[in-house]
C-alpha cells in the first residue's frame, strides 16, 4: 500500500500532508524517531478533512481513554505506525485532533511513575489480603 496521493486525494493541501506523513513514517521505520502533526492548526475545511480521513482509513487497533478530565479516542490508520487521535474535554467538546507517527502513541503508554505507584499499591493490597487471610485462619 502506498501513501502516494491517489485520485481521491489530488488536492494539493492533502498531498502535502500525505507527503509529510510518508517522510516521517519512513524516518520512524529507519531511525525510530517519532513525530506528530497537529490537525487543529491546519486550515482544513470538512471536505478536505473527509478526504484525508478516507485516504488514511482505519486499521485494526482502536482505543478509548476516559478519565475525570476528558476522553481521547485513538485508532491506527491503514498505515502501520500512523495513528489518529482526537481529544475531548469533560463536556465531550472536541479540543484538538492530531496524527501521531509512532509505534504506539505516547498517551497509550503507561507512565513509569504511574507503574511504580501501581506496583506499590498492588504490593500493599497483597500484604493486606495476606494479613486478612491469617486473621481468618
Amino acid at each position, binding site marked *: 500500500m502506498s501513501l502516494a496521493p491517489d485520485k481521491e486525494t489530488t488536492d494539493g493541501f492533502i498531498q502535502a500532508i500525505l507527503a509529510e506523513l510518508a517522510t516521517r513514517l519512513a524516518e520512524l521505520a529507519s531511525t525510530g524517531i517519532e513525530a506528530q502533526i497537529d490537525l487543529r492548526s491546519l486550515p482544513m475545511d470538512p471536505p478536505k478533512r473527509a478526504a484525508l480521513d478516507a485516504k488514511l482509513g482505519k486499521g485494526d487497533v482502536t482505543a478509548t481513554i476516559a*478519565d475525570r478530565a476528558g476522553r481521547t479516542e485513538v485508532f491506527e490508520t491503514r498505515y502501520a505506525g500512523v495513528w489518529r487521535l482526537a481529544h475531548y474535554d469533560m463536556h465531550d*467538546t472536541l479540543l484538538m485532533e492530531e496524527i501521531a507517527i509512532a509505534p504506539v502513541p505516547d498517551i497509550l503508554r503507561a507512565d513509569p511513575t504511574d507503574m511504580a505507584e501501581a506496583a506499590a499499591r498492588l504490593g500493599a493490597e497483597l500484604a493486606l489480603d495476606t494479613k486478612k487471610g491469617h486473621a481468618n485462619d
Partner: protein
Amino acid sequence: MTEPQTVGEMLARKGISRRALLRYAAWVTSIMALPSSMTRAMAQGIADTKRMSVIWLSCQECTACTESLTRSYSPTIDDLIFDFISLDYHEALQAAAGHQAEEARLKAMEDNKDNYVVIVDGSIPLGNMGYSTVAGHANADVLRETAEHALAVVAVGSCATWGGLPKADPNPTGAVSVSQIVRNTPIINISGCPPIPEAMTGTLAHVLAFGQIPELDHLGRPRAFFGNSIHDRCYRRPFYDKGLFAKSFDDEGARKGWCLYELGCKGPVTYNACATLKWNGGASWPVQTGHGCLGCSEPDFWDRGSFYKPLPASTEPLATPLAAGAVAGVAAGALASRAAKTRREILGAMSKPKDAADTTDKT
C-alpha cells in the same frame, strides 16, 4: 499520608492520570502553536514541578479578568490550571479577609521568594494614592513590594497592561500600567477586555512547565496568542478580499455575513486570538455575532475614536505604547541584578528586549 511534593503526585492523589496530563499538554502546545513534539516535555515539566505560588493583585479593575479565567465555561480543561498553581492571595476569591489576608500574601512571598508569580488586573492610580487601596496601602506600594521578589509579573487585561478604561482621557486617577511601576522583574502582558482565558492559562502552564517566559511580541505579549491580527484570521476575511462589506447592521450584507470593516471593525489593527480560540468554550466571538472588533487588546483602545467609524476615519495616532521594550528591558535588568541561580533568572534571560522603548515612573 505525606503531602504531595509535585504537581504529578498531587494529580495522582486526585485521581487524574498522567494520560490526562498528556491530553492537557497536547492541547496547550496546540493553542500556543508549539511543536507537537514538545507535548511530552510539557507534561513532564508540569508533573515534576512544585505547585506554583500565585499572588493575584487587583487594582483599579472590574473583576472581569477574574471572571474570564474562573467562570468562562466551567468546568473546562482550563480548570486544570488550578491544580497546577497555589492561588495564595486573591482578594475576591480567598476566604481570609483583613489582616489575615495580608499575612497570607506576605507568607507566600517569604516562603516562595524568587519563585512565585504575581498576576495583576487593573490599572494603578498615581494621581492620588487614596483612589485605590487595600488594607490601607496604595496599589502602587503593594505592587512594588510584591513584585520585588517575584519570578515574573503577569499583567492581565487591558487595564493592567496599558492603563485601560481608567486611563481613558482625561485619566482622572492618573492611571498607569504595571510596566510603569514594576522595574526589576520580568513582565508578561496579556491584554484584552477581558483577556481570553486560554491566553492566561496557556501562558501560566508554559512558565510552570518550562520555567521560561514564552516568546513575546514588541508589546510584551505572548506571540502564541497575539501574533496574528484579528483581520488575518477572521472567517469574514474572504469577503474583505472580494470588496463585499456590510453597510449597516441590518442590511443584506450583514445578513450574509460580509466584512464589517465599514461598520468600524478594528480587526486589521488588533492582535489577539479571538478569531481562532473564540469565547465561551469556543462557542462564538464578537465578529461572529455580527459586531465589529473593538480592538480591546490594543493600547488606549478606548480613546481611538468611534467604534462605529471605519478605520481610516477613526484611528488616531496612538499614545506611545508604554512598555514595549520596557517590559523586556526590565527583565534584562533583573538578570544583571541577581547573583543566585534561580528560575527567575532563567525567566529573565528569556525576555530580552525587542526594542528600547522607555517608560517613565511617575512615582
